């Protein structure tokens, strides 16, 4: 059993594993990381997880994520775990955290919002109730986080 687990996690030599992605969100993660081109990736979907019920998992070979990329992924999969693999070993492991203030990574859907009319960064405030919502600091419109377009 232990060995099985080790093989699963260490199946890449060097790179990044994003575990505990909210089930159904892995394709969105691939999209924003722009992995379609040349990276080797392994995808697991709808796997059983003790921690979050159903989960997706993504393994990317020879790639480390920037801080910006990590922040964006947190918006899509706030419960994800980020694992860095070096030479088949787990080098580091960290839970992603949804920050209360998000700059840049969300595009405000309101066409009248100043962030879409002047070249300035968006700023959102994340509100976690039963639903996770995000309120634009500028136009003050509130959206479900799931409905928002995330960028890096």
């Amino acid at each position, binding site marked *: 059993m232990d060995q099985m687990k080790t093989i699963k996690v260490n199946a890449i030599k060097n790179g990044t594993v994003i575990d505990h992605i909210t089930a159904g969100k892995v394709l969105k993660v691939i999209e924003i990381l722009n992995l379609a081109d040349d990276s080797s990736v392994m995808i697991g979907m709808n796997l059983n997880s003790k921690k979050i019920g159903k989960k997706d998992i993504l393994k990317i070979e020879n790639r480390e994520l920037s801080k910006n990329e990590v922040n964006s992924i947190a918006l899509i999969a706030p419960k994800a775990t980020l694992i860095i693999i070096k030479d088949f070993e787990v080098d580091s492991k960290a839970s992603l955290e949804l920050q209360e203030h998000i700059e840049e990574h969300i595009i405000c859907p*309101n066409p009248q919002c*100043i962030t879409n009319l*002047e070249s*300035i960064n968006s700023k959102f405030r994340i509100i976690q109730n039963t639903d996770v919502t995000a309120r634009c*600091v500028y136009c*003050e419109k509130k959206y479900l986080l799931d409905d928002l377009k995330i960028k890096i």
Partner: protein
Amino acid sequence: MKNLISMRDLKPEEIYHLLSVTEKIEKGEIIPDMQRKLAALLFFEPSTRTMFSFDTAMKRMNGDTIIMSGTKNTSAKKGESFADTLQTIAQYSDIIIMRSPTEGAARFASEVVEIPIVNAGDGANQHPTQALLDLYSILKTQGTLKNLKIGLAGDLRFGRTIHSLTQAMSLFGAEFKFISPSFLQMPDYIKDDLTLQNVKFDEIREMNGNISDLDILYVTRIQKERFADPEDYEKVKGSYVLNRDMLSHVKDNFKVLHPLPRVDEINTDVDNTKYAYYFSQAKNGVYTRQAIISILLGEV
């Protein structure tokens, strides 16, 4: 308080402080002196009334104004950024009062310049000085802001004044009646906020017969242009016009408010009843703006 951008930023105690300064200014107990102070009025969208109200407020305090008025950022044509325009104006003036069709413009301005910014309306978003003068009018006529029953009638969907006032009054335990045609009803995001705060509200399609239990009726205009079919407008508009006959059973303390300009949603036969308060409300706007400017410039 460094800027006035949104009603969301204000705590009840800050609102009370501002309203008490307004009252003292009205009664002549505080006479703010703005001599040598210059307010820049930047109106990227025309609004003669709001501009006059601020201009009057500043001049009543011996202050001065410079006015930039145009349909859009006038420097934009020359390729200057909005941020640069603001930085430049801030070198000349002590306070910037700005109106813009762009939502969030005032918030952005407050991040760019050091001097105080007053939001005089940013698109469909906020118009906090209007909300505050409405609160002052309510306080003055009712003696309290607490636990009032407030009717809001007309265009509740697009009216930012209505939205700001609803948010503000919900801080004080108000109960609401929303009176509007269905497609101009209060937006869900406002109603969701009210539900979260346990604020009671009813939605009603007819003004007549539904105002006798109200302390305040706030009337707004229903614009014909909102309707795709002019016939639909003709069908509903009569249900949202207040006239004198409808006032026979209202409460003694009942008052009618309107942000003005009025077209025909309040019949002129209401004007000389004791319930009409909309012209006094406009006058209150000057006192309220005097208080806001004085507080932001540290003069009171």
